């Protein structure tokens, strides 16, 4: 609680109320219940809507709850057998590998481009800065359901403008009738472009906000000392950017690990299971096959991995000066 050693005497009407011959300001009540009352409603809602479901999820992962159970309510405990079967299922291993590799590619791509754009924003004139910012906000703001549909249209075999542009570029030959959804590599490329396209604005604008906080004297001093631009970027900009960069990087890892809509709407995890990441696989298990118990077990495993990342994120958030 804040210190109450304020020696200003209340004036006017208030003073009249406190007319007792008390020389000190009124002592603050020992226990203030206000935060308790303020917090309780939200805490109750969060407990019922998030904490309780997570506990239920863990419990559910030890049962064989499925489509039948939804109607009859009948299900049985199966112990850890679902975990055992997940860990021996090659599909789990493959989903995990796909998720990790794809998330890495997404994070790397969006961070590199984001850093580049952030740096670019410090170099351009006022008008161009405005133009780039507005363009970034557009790309950021388009809801991913809409952008996924736009992507399907851009990459449409026969009529897609990207197919046409690539054909005109004459690098890959005639791309006109290429079906991006039919080859795993092409499906990944299209989805990668979609997610990176939407991730770059957040990264670029956040990094740029941090970058503009760097005192100009550092750059001037370095230039006077004859440092070249690359060295200045590495030694000064990156140094100041490091805490923000780390936070943005971890957030990107978490988000890209959790990507669902874009994959679901562009490729449905196909062709075959080629773009089926952990999230897609969980969803298919739980809501297409309606093996909710098994889906829960996969979700628990995914959550455990993400919570490790989150713990790392929170540690760095605290280190960067955020107060909890």
């Amino acid at each position, binding site marked *: 609680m804040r210190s109450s050693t304020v020696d200003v005497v209340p004036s006017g009407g208030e003073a009249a109320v406190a007319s007792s011959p008390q020389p000190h300001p009124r002592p603050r009540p020992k226990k*203030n219940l206000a935060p308790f009352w303020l917090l309780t409603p939200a805490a109750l809602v969060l407990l019922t809507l998030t904490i309780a479901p*997570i506990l239920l999820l863990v419990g559910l992962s030890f049962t064989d709850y499925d489509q039948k159970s939804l109607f009859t309510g009948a299900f049985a405990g199966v112990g850890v057998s679902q975990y055992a079967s997940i860990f021996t299922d090659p599909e789990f291993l493959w989903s995990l590998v796909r998720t990790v590799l794809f998330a890495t590619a997404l994070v790397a791509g969006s961070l590199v481009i984001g850093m580049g*754009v952030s740096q670019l924003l410090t170099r351009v004139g006022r008008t*161009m800065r405005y133009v780039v910012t507005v363009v970034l906000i*557009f790309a950021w*703001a388009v809801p991913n359901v809409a952008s996924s549909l736009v992507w399907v249209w851009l990459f449409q075999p026969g009529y897609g403008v990207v197919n046409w542009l690539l054909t005109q570029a004459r690098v890959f030959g005639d791309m006109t009738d290429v079906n991006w959804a039919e080859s795993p590599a092409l499906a990944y490329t299209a989805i990668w472009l979609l997610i990176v396209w939407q*991730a770059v604005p957040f990264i670029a604008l956040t990094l740029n906000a941090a970058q503009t906080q760097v005192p100009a004297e550092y750059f001037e001093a370095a230039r006077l000392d004859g440092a070249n631009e690359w060295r200045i970027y590495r030694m000064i900009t990156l140094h100041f950017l490091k805490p923000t960069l780390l936070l943005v990087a971890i957030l990107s890892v978490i988000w890209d690990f959790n990507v669902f809509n874009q994959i679901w709407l562009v490729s449905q995890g196909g062709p075959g299971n080629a773009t089926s990441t952990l999230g897609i696989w969980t969803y298919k298990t739980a809501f297409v096959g309606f093996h909710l118990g098994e889906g829960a077990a*996969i979700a628990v495993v995914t959550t455990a991995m993400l919570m490790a990342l989150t713990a790392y994120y929170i540690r760095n958030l605290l280190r960067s000066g955020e107060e909890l």
Partner: protein
Amino acid sequence: MSTSAPPRTAVGAASTRVPQRDRRRGRRRGRRRVGANLVALIFSVVWVFPVYWMINTAFKPRPEVMTAQPIFFPQHPTVSNFVNAFEQSNFLLDLRNSVIVVVSAVLLSIVLGGFAAAALSRFRFRGRRTIMVVILAVQMLPPTALLIPTFLVFNELNLLGTFVGLVLAYVATVLPFSIWVMRGFFLAIPYEIEEAAMIDGAGTWRILRSILFPLVLPGIIATSIFAFITAWNDYLIAYTFMKDSTMYTLPIWLASFSNPQSGTDFGGQMAASVLFSLPVVVFFLLIQRKLVTGMSAGAVKG
């Protein structure tokens, strides 16, 4: 972006060297800026292209949409795609559904979250850090982790496919980061103001109502917009919970938009996408300056 050294390097006495170097640097910087501007221009064209193509397609009459040679500017621009989208079964109905559900969820979250944020920013008490960590951690959960148990419970309580169920699911999504972001805005208000009020005899409630909340109002509005966008964009929860097409929200309507007569009607689909994206884009431009504030909680994902 380096430039070759000008030929006049060695000319001039010591006294003129400084201004000359300055001038040279100025010129070099000018040239560099032109280069940077050019790169920025190319980047902008590439990055805005998908949005441009969405809008471009939306205004094309049907024969101009599917062409062997793409048409970069509609030759006979038309709003018929938008008219079709409006007249498409359920657009207005699903728009109404979206507005009802999203606005209810945002109002609930902002009221509950506003009080919680006040408690978490203006008071010190045991367990505060734990609460903050939990709030942050909940944000990072994989989407299916909440979806599966919630689906089960709502199935038991007959809340599946109802607006109440959807609102509750959105509150669960939106409330944690609303608390986090609003707390940040509360923290930005100096304690001295509160102290002054306290000295004047104002109680906790009075301070909250007459001082803190009015001061945080811009932050509360920005947070509401974050929350609105997140709930408005949700596809996964509504897609899983809502099975009756008259109860769909707009994202589901949009994703299932197709014309059975002639395959996907891309003109109509793009017009619908524009209509759906429009409020979000407007909101983004409005809170542009506050976008980065919501960052640490990951308030606005792509």
